[in-house]
């Protein structure tokens, strides 16, 4: 029910942009990324405040695994949040001066549709193998990051089949080509999954730590919304070992902040989350993602954060001054 509402909202916003060109069309535009195996076009949304300034990029994709329905729901919700608040929220206004947000609401479109029409718990893509007797590659094992080395199967019948080679799948290629071309501008790569309640940092294929501490701050912001606990850490240590993940690949080509989010829950309902948890999950995850984007903004564009910081600094000092006088 709630998913339908979020979907309708997003459609409304996109339609509104076509019917009323002077509302959101300045901010959000739709762009072609590539084609899926079953020849469906992949579109990403670019949220960009028009300006003369050269921007850096935040990338977020959802729905790489078909059955993780809360993930595309979250991408839709996040877009809605930005569009509803970009004129009034000072933090959003601030980061949109410097950053473009690219959102791919459903990466594995073929698999996602298949999970709606045919098999709810489908995970992989829908590419045909072995003369059409076996279907699907795990797109999150198909990226060129230590491809095929660990935590995969080379057998199509497995749900962690890594494909016939790195980037063998058109969906993977579409994302990888796009990011590769812009990698010097991409500051942050976020990929949204479920379930487990984790914020995962590189790497999955080895146990070297590639950490900064923004993941921890994001988990704190997330918990403040509804009390939900997320576990933070390197994939290989807190989840399981895997190779060929988009997160690992993104970090290996030089993108500094690369995280996998595993949203609610922790296994009681798993992939089939009750509808009353959709909105709270989206709210808390939005808080976490905003924390990361704000950090990236402050780190790379320190001057733009000064206005906000000095304002609160003055406020703090005047409060202190008033208190000491009383």
């Amino acid at each position, binding site marked *: 029910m709630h998913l339908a509402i979020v979907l309708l909202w997003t459609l409304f916003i996109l339609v509104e942009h076509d019917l009323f060109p002077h509302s959101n069309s300045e901010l959000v535009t739709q762009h072609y990324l590539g084609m899926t195996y079953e020849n469906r076009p992949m579109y990403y949304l670019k949220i960009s405040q028009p300006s003369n300034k050269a921007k850096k990029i935040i990338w977020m994709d959802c729905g790489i695994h078909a059955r993780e329905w809360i993930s595309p729901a979250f991408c839709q919700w996040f877009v809605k949040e930005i569009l509803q608040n970009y004129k009034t929220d000072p933090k959003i206004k601030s980061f949109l001066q410097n950053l473009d947000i690219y959102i791919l609401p459903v990466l594995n479109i073929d698999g996602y549709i298949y999970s709606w029409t045919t098999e709810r*718990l489908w995970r992989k893509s829908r590419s045909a193998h072995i003369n059409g007797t076996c279907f699907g590659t795990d797109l999150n094992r198909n990226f060129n990051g230590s491809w095929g080395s660990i*935590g995969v199967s080379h057998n199509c*019948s497995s749900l962690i089949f890594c494909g016939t080679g790195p980037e063998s799948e058109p969906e993977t290629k579409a994302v990888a080509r796009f990011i590769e071309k812009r990698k010097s501008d991409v500051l942050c790569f976020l990929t949204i999954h479920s379930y487990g309640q984790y914020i995962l940092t590189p790497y999955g294929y080895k*146990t070297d730590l590639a950490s900064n501490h923004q993941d921890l701050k994001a988990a704190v912001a997330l918990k403040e919304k509804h009390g939900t606990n997320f576990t933070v850490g390197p994939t290989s240590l807190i989840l399981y070992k895997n190779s060929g993940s988009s997160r690992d690949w993104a970090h290996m080509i030089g993108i500094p902040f690369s995280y996998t989010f595993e949203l609610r829950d922790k*296994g009681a309902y798993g992939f089939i989350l009750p509808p009353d948890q959709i909105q709270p999950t989206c709210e808390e995850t939005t808080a976490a993602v905003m924390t990361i984007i704000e950090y990236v903004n402050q780190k790379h564009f320190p001057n733009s954060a000064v206005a906000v910081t000095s304002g609160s600094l003055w406020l703090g000092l005047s409060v202190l001054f008033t208190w000491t006088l009383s």
Partner: protein
Amino acid sequence: MQRRSAARLGPLLLLLLLPLAWGEGPSPPRADGELQVSNRLAGQAARVALHYLNYRTGSPSALRALGQVRKATVKTIPGIGHKYYLQFTTEDYKSSQNVGTCLATVLYLKRKPRPAVNINCTYTKDQKQTREDDYSFYKKMRQQTKPITGNDIPDSYGNIEPALEPAWALAVAGSSYLMWEKSTENLGYFMAQVKNVKQWITKDDSIDFDYSVVLHEIPTQEMISCHLRVIWTPGHPLKVKYFCLSENQRSESGEGSGTESGSTNGIFNEEEANF
């Protein structure tokens, strides 16, 4: 190999060597000592302990899920296996409210298939209420003249019909037996969905159900289909029979009647230092 001799040099050295042990591909740690609370093996062991608890408690209204691991240590028992010593919080399976903490040991044996569990927990949920809820489900099912049936619980959109919710919970309790049996140090399970439930009307005191369930297996991501037969009387051990088929057509079956070893009394025989 070098870690075996290092094991004699003391716990501190072991802790330093732990990251090296973990670098060894997907195999479990060979070095003993304290684990980070977020370590996947600690969470995995805690879940195994909870599968055992949920099965032995046999109460659909009192199912528990893992909250957070507070402390975890692992010890190698040469020739036997790995023993985990755990302290963790638990949540109500449905509401995610905190319902108490547990101390548990989980021994993964090299020879016997199922992990040996000792577990003792505090429980903060109103036990009178859970007994009443169990009994009210039981009474309703006993009064059925036509057997209840259901499909896809929850449905694709996450909905569970209120009338079928206790039957779903009983499936979780029954699946817990099978998930306990199948779990290894590296392979873990969750019950993803009840594909089908059918009641058997019985002449005795118990209520009796046939289930088809789908289990989610980690880290393979496979969905395992199993048939479960669950026979239950409130306050008595669950009787569970199961038969599973996986993608590779491996089949496994088993039977539990609440008399399996792994008691809840042994916990205080453990040296405190082990925790």
